């Protein structure tokens, strides 16, 4: 059984890392730790979501994230339904808000939403009674990914504060990068971004990150090397001339990794393009790579987020009601 609630999230929804303060992050990560234990038992069931209905509402293809949320919901005893909207009503012309209203009529407790447009998940959250978890909106945020990355780092390094984290690759199109930058900065880590100029958003130098175009220099003395996926269609000359040029200058190989600290961890949100952004030898290095561990932490973090958000829902209210700052 998970520990008694130690903290409550200030909002009904988890739309992004933006707005979370260090105590919120710590609370989520602390609770996640207990769910790591739960998930490693033979009996993996907990009861925080018993009787609750969770809908995985994915407007964009995903296997890993959807499965992770589905497992998290089921391990908490909730009823989880997957809706791949790509293949359903949207094709028939239904608007996002229509979909939201239809779903609300079915009284779900949690909606886990992924959408290709930045801001779409927030729009949907304004129209439903359920708690909404952003599972990735366009190029904006992917908060549970940042939380699972933080949990992975914290378990290995014992802290987040003061660590030097180099986020490398397609920063421009990455919601993972945005959420990670926000979370790592709020937790006191030093964040570097390493990318060619064509894969960096304009104005990034004002985010309080250190910007590097030369990967070797960017990895110098880093504690964490966080690689991002570069989509194939972005390597045909629009942003980057070719996969081989990208790998030569921005692919993580042993040579470049040698610039990081000897005990630096290698992370990747998956799925990996081996030989494009990461060399197989490095990705599979069990001493350095925590890529598989990230996947495991993903389920635990999502259990914690589901648990904490549903504690705020009606029927689970603590004596004295919902704390101030709630999103209701």
């Amino acid at each position, binding site marked *: 059984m998970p520990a008694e609630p130690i903290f409550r999230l200030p909002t009904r929804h988890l739309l992004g890392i933006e707005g979370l303060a260090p105590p919120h992050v710590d609370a989520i990560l602390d609770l996640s730790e207990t769910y790591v234990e739960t998930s490693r038992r033979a009996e993996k069931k907990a009861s925080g979501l018993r009787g609750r209905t969770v809908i995985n509402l994915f407007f964009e293809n995903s296997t890993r994230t959807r499965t992770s949320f589905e497992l998290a919901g089921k391990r908490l005893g909730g009823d989880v339904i997957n809706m791949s909207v790509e293949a359903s009503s949207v094709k028939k012309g239904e608007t996002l808000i229509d979909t939201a209203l239809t779903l609300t009529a079915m009284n779900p407790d949690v909606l886990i939403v992924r959408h290709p447009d930045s801001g779409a998940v927030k729009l949907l959250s304004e129209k439903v009674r359920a708690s909404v978890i952003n599972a990735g909106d366009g190029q904006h945020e992917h908060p549970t990914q940042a939380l699972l990355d933080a949990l992975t780092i914290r378990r290995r390094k014992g802290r987040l504060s003061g660590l030097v984290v180099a986020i490398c690759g397609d920063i421009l199109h990455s919601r993972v990068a945005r959420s990670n930058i926000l979370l790592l900065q709020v937790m006191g880590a030093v964040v570097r971004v390493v990318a*060619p*100029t*064509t894969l960096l958003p304009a104005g990034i130098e004002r985010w309080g990150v250190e910007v590097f*175009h030369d990967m070797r220099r960017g990895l110098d003395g880093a504690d964490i090397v966080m690689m991002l996926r570069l989509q194939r269609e972005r390597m*045909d*000359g*629009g*942003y*980057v*001339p*070719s996969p*081989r*040029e990208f790998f*030569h*200058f921005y692919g993580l190989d042993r040579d470049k990794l040698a610039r990081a600290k000897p005990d630096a961890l290698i992370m990747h949100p998956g799925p990996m393009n081996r030989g494009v952004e990461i060399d197989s030898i490095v990705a599979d290095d069990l001493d350095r790579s925590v890529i598989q561990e990230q996947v495991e932490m993903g389920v635990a973090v999502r259990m914690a987020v589901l648990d904490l958000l549903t504690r705020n829902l009606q029927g689970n209210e603590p004596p004295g009601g919902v704390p101030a700052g709630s999103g209701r």
Partner: protein
Amino acid sequence: MIGSPLRLLLRNARLVDPATGLDQPGSLLVEDGRIAALGPAIDATGGAAGEGVRTIDCAGHVLAPGLVDIRVQAREPGDEHLETVASASAAAAAGGITTFCCLPNTEPPIDDVALVDFVSRRGSTIGLVRVHPYAALTKGLKGEALAEIGLMAEAGAVAFTDGVRPVADPRMMRRALAYARNFDALVVQRPEDPSLARGGAMNEGELAARLGLPGIPVEAEVIMLERDIRLAALTGARYHASLVSCAKSVEVVRRAKDAGLAVTCDTTPAYFGLNEVAVSNYRTYAKLSPPLRTEADRLAVLAAVKDGTIDCVVSDHAPFDHDSKRLPFAQASFGGVGLETLLALLLEQVHNGALTLMQALAPVTERPARLMRLPVGRLAQGAPADLVEIDLGRAWKIDNKRFVSKGRNTPFDNKPVQGKVVRALVGGRVVFQG
């Protein structure tokens, strides 16, 4: 690459070096292909003379850094009937040019590491002058997708350009500049908006109207130049505009430089030596790209060379066969050869009193060398002994039948000029003797 183990003393010379402002009589000692010492005292001490030292008497001629020409089409690979790296090297040496950079407009275009390597190797195998290839900015010079700028820079590409084809799409140009900045690579563009220039054969204006030829407005050049400079400012990239031909372009570049942008430019002697009247009688040998402009433009370009707003002067060597020029004007090819006339046409302006010798030599020595980050173009101890000996007074007539280049298409045929290359040395080795 090109060296000589011998010690060589060039004595009785007028040493001229725009990099330092040096202009004085003296000698220059070459050791192992590099400049070992120079100055008036070298002769007097006799320290340099002795066993194993070959001596050349320069007879009071100018001894200057060998010329660096950053815009040459060597036509290899693909159009070897027009020119080769070998024939261009020989023509360059004859023109006092000891280093040239060749454009990627070949067949196939130089847009791949292997081709960059091929052209570099051709240059060193021939071993006459130093040859540095440009590489394509976009794949296939099509202006649609980034070429492998990083890998080609590592392979020795000196800078990046689509050569005679400007990158038309502003979004592509922005990406190319941004990407090039990663590697601190120089982007070179000959600005001309293809849509505004389409179908044009000569400068738009009264003369074109009288000749009944379709015109190319100066705005075709100026609009793209202004666009590029804005994109260079946005991305922070190093940008070089090639073949500035008109007063308005000079103004635009001057403003960019005043604003502190990393913007440079070049021109070719045709734009300060000729105006659009040269194409009267439908003279296709004077059909150039950009087209020859008005007299006011010519004077503005000359003034900009004088004050340094135009950083470099290039040959814009573009060899064609007669078949490409002996055509109705509108159908003839654009371009002229220039390797063997670059120096004489600059010296013409010195003899005219329009430029000083330093002002004429700086844009073909230290400035292009500095722009391309090449260790040549100056008379400095330890620098490669790439030198040109010039007889400033010698009169001769440009005669395209006597060109070393395979190309004969010069707009300056039969022009009397003054000032001739006596000798050219690369790495201390004599590669041309007139």
